[in-house]
C-alpha cells in the first residue's frame, strides 16, 4: 500500500518533468520509480492511509492552497512596506506557541504555512511537546495562549481536516 502510493507519486513527478510523453520515456520512468521505491520505500510516508482518501485532496486544493496564497500575498506586501518605510514600526522577538499536531508531515506543513504568514518565520520545532518557536517582526502578544490563537489556529484547523 505504502509502496504503491510512493510509486505513483514518483511516476507523476517523472511525467511532469518529461512532459511530451513518449512510450520509451514512460518505460524508463516506470523502471526508475521502481528502483526509487525499492531503495527508500521504508523511509517515507508514516501514515499511508491518509493518502488514499479523496476528500483530503479536495480540502487541500480548495481550502489550504487558497489560504496559503492569500497569506503569501499579504505577507509580501507587508514585507515590502516594512522594508521601504523610512521609520518602520519594528518590535521583533521570538515567541513560543503550542500546537496539537503530532504527525511529522502535518507539523512540516504547519511550519511552512506559518513561515508564509506576515512577519513570521519558524525558528525551531519541539515535536515531542508540540512547541513552535516563531520569530515575529511585530510582536503583539507575548503569552502563549493569545499568541497561539493569532499564529497557529488558522492553519491548524485546516491541517486537522487534511492529515487526521
Amino acid at each position: 500500500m505504502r509502496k504503491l502510493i510512493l510509486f505513483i507519486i514518483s511516476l507523476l513527478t517523472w511525467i511532469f518533468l518529461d512532459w511530451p510523453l513518449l512510450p520509451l520515456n514512460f518505460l524508463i520512468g516506470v523502471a526508475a520509480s521502481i528502483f526509487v521505491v525499492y531503495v527508500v520505500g521504508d523511509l517515507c510516508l508514516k501514515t499511508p492511509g491518509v493518502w488514499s482518501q479523496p476528500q483530503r485532496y479536495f480540502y487541500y486544493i480548495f481550502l489550504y492552497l487558497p489560504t496559503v496564497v492569500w497569506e503569501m500575498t499579504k505577507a509580501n506586501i507587508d514585507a515590502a512596506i516594512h522594508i521601504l518605510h523610512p521609520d518602520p514600526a519594528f518590535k521583533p522577538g521570538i515567541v513560543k506557541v503550542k500546537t496539537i499536531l503530532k504527525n511529522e508531515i502535518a507539523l512540516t506543513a504547519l511550519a511552512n504555512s506559518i513561515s508564509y504568514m506576515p512577519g513570521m518565520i519558524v525558528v525551531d520545532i519541539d515535536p515531542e511537546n508540540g512547541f513552535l518557536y516563531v520569530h515575529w517582526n511585530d510582536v503583539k502578544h507575548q503569552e502563549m495562549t493569545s499568541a497561539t490563537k493569532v499564529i497557529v489556529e488558522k492553519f491548524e484547523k485546516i491541517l486537522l481536516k487534511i492529515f487526521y
Partner: protein
Amino acid sequence: MINSLGVFFIIIGLIFDVIGGIGLVRLPDVYSRLQAAFKCVTIGTSNILLGVLLIVGFNATGMKILVCAAFLIFTAPVAAHALLRAARRSGVPLTLQSVVDQYESEDVKTDE
C-alpha cells in the same frame, strides 16, 4: 494580450526581488534579513516563472516551469528554517530593539 500579461507579471516579480535585495541591506539582524530575503525572493521568483509560463504556454517548457514553482514554494521555507535554527543555536544575538526571546529562556537544549 497574454504576452503583455506575462510581461506584467515578470515586472512585478523583478520589483519584489529588488525589494528583497534592499531588505537584505537595510534590516538590522540576521533573523529579519533572512525573513525579508526569503519572502520577497520566493514571491518574486514565482511571479517571474508565472509570467514566463503565460508567454510560452503549456508545452514542455511550461510543465518544467510549473514543477520549478512547486518545488520552490515547498522547499524555500525549509531552507530558511534550517539557516535560522543554525544561527539561533550557534548564538547569533537578536537586535537590540527586540522585545522578547522565549527560545533562550525556556529551552535547555541550547546550552553550550
